[in-house]
């Protein structure tokens, strides 16, 4: 990894608590600690995979980084510039540099707007060119993501899930951003369509030096597309490493459990079954100490009381575990 350059995206000690309000006076009675001190950086042309199970806060991270949700604490830097405290108006020009692709190809496109206008919307908002220029640009984008420009006048419902995801990607590309948050972009797609969209995302990255924050629960997809991977559990990053070493030898017991749980499409592999017991606890009242200790097969008494910090164990590799 090139450590000397300024990362394109740098997130430090990010926190997002959602207050739980109750009663007539809407008093805050507690917090959902969705994101609890997350730090990472992404270089130009790099993909950071963010994995974890539902409720671990990975989608919230994606939204907070783009400031679609306001962070409770921490800082977000894009190309070295701190955007955490920027006002809405000041943030607007920066929106051209960062975009998002969502999971659900159905609800991410307004059903009442023609797809050509959906893709052209960012250009219109940022006053790029005149009407003719914009139409040309949209046609180019359509071609690039594998749609026919003559489909521009159709409505979203006339497309299949995979095609809609291509429309979403075209919309995200319209302003030529450097950074895209991809929030489970292939999870809702059929297997044979997933490969098409993953290939498209990777081709685009090579062409345009794109950086991705690739959020997914699918470890195989994350391994395929990412350069580095961060594993989240209940609002915290528990392991952060380059892809190869993480998948070769997971260090955190949770990463290990996740990998062991993924069913492999190869019946000749007879694996020893390492199963973690129990459910993911609620982020409203997470377990003390290390959040994973109630499910961890190696847990020791100190894991219950002392929260492990994310520390370097090897160059470019961090783990939050007392035992590793």
């Amino acid at each position, binding site marked *: 990894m090139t450590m000397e350059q300024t990362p394109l995206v740098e997130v430090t000690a990010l926190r997002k608590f959602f207050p739980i309000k109750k009663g007539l006076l809407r008093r805050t009675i507690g917090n959902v600690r969705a994101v609890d001190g997350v730090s990472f950086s992404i270089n130009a042309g790099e993909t950071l995979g963010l994995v974890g199970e539902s409720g671990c806060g990975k989608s919230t991270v994606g*939204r907070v980084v*783009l400031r*679609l949700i306001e962070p409770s604490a921490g800082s977000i830097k894009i190309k070295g510039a701190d955007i955490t405290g920027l006002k809405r108006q000041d*943030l*607007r*020009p920066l*929106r*051209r540099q*960062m*975009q*998002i692709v*969502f*999971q*659900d190809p159905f*609800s*991410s*496109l*307004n*059903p*009442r*707007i023609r797809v050509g206008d959906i893709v052209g*919307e*960012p250009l219109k*908002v*940022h006053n790029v060119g005149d009407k003719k220029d914009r139409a040309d640009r949209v046609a180019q984008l359509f071609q690039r993501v594998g749609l026919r420009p*003559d*489909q521009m*006048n*159709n*409505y979203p*419902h*006339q*497309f*299949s899930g995979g*095609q809609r995801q291509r429309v*979403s990607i075209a*919309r995200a590309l*319209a*302003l030529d951003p450097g950074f895209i948050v991809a929030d489970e972009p292939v999870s809702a797609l059929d297997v044979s369509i997933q490969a098409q969209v993953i290939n498209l995302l990777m081709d685009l990255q090579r062409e345009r030096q794109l950086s991705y924050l690739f959020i997914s629960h699918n470890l195989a997809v994350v391994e395929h597309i990412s350069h580095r991977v961060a594993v989240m559990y209940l609002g915290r990053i528990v392991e952060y490493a380059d892809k190869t070493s993480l998948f070769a030898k997971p260090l955190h017991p949770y990463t290990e459990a996740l990998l062991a749980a993924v069913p492999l499409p190869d019946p000749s592999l007879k694996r020893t079954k390492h199963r973690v017991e129990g459910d993911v606890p609620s982020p409203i009242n997470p377990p003390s100490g290390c959040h994973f200790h109630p499910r961890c097969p190696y847990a020791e008494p100190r894991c219950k009381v002392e929260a492990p910090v994310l520390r370097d164990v090897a160059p470019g590799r961090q783990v939050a575990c007392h035992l590793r």
Partner: protein
Amino acid sequence: MTTNVNTMKFSFMDNVLYQAKRYPLGVAGAIIMTVFVFAALFATTVAPLDPFSTNAKASLAKPGGVFLMGADMMGRDVFSRLIHGARVSLAVALGATCIGSGFGAVIGLACGYIGGWFDLLVQRVTEVMQALPLLVMALVITASLGPSLPNTIIAIAIPLIPTVSRVVRSNVLSLREMPYVEAAKAIGMSEWRIAAIHVLPNTLAPLIVLATAQLGSTILTEASLSFLGLGVPEPYPSWGRMLSESAAEYVRTAPWLVIFPGLAISLVVFGSNLLGDALRDALDPRQRD
């Protein structure tokens, strides 16, 4: 799933004809409404007789001959009075529904967007308003404003606001969470534009259904107000008052005085509901092919 749809272009007329074929009931509703609107607009030419001229000889004349639908106690032609009455009924219905839905939509949008204590306050006020039946509220308002056409419209419009604002508010709240609204935020679209382009058009469908359903109930309220003598004052013929004047006394001896105004009211309510349902579907691009 419809995939690989061909991208033929359709003209406006093609689309209208196509929709007409798909929603025959909607067409029936549209025809009913057109007939009434036409009658109301050109009442003076359409009506065969003067609705105001009395004729003692023709008192309670049976339907047939000159009096297509008979005559009332004062010998006035029921058919002509119904046609003129359409003016009042439709003016009240359309006026009240438009005003009520318009204000309701604005208030609902504001509540959904501003939220906080403003929302809390407005919600409590609407709850209090909803606790009173439409007719009772309209009664109180007309009683204090005095009977006249504009006052009747206002009296019926105000009680419509809470329902509409609540429907719009809840829609806004759920639409604001939609990923496509988030995507619009992500490209830096202003909140106003998001509201105008993404949120409002998607609340239109339930709003249209609600408005047409209310079109019917406003006609009924107007009829009830007139029935109670608080609606549009004499000598303008109103369907509600035509019913009220004759219901008790003549229902046995001259049933046409009750049947025809009643029929007119039912038909308009029926027609507006049919039209509303079809409109909701036809306006949704998802239903268009």
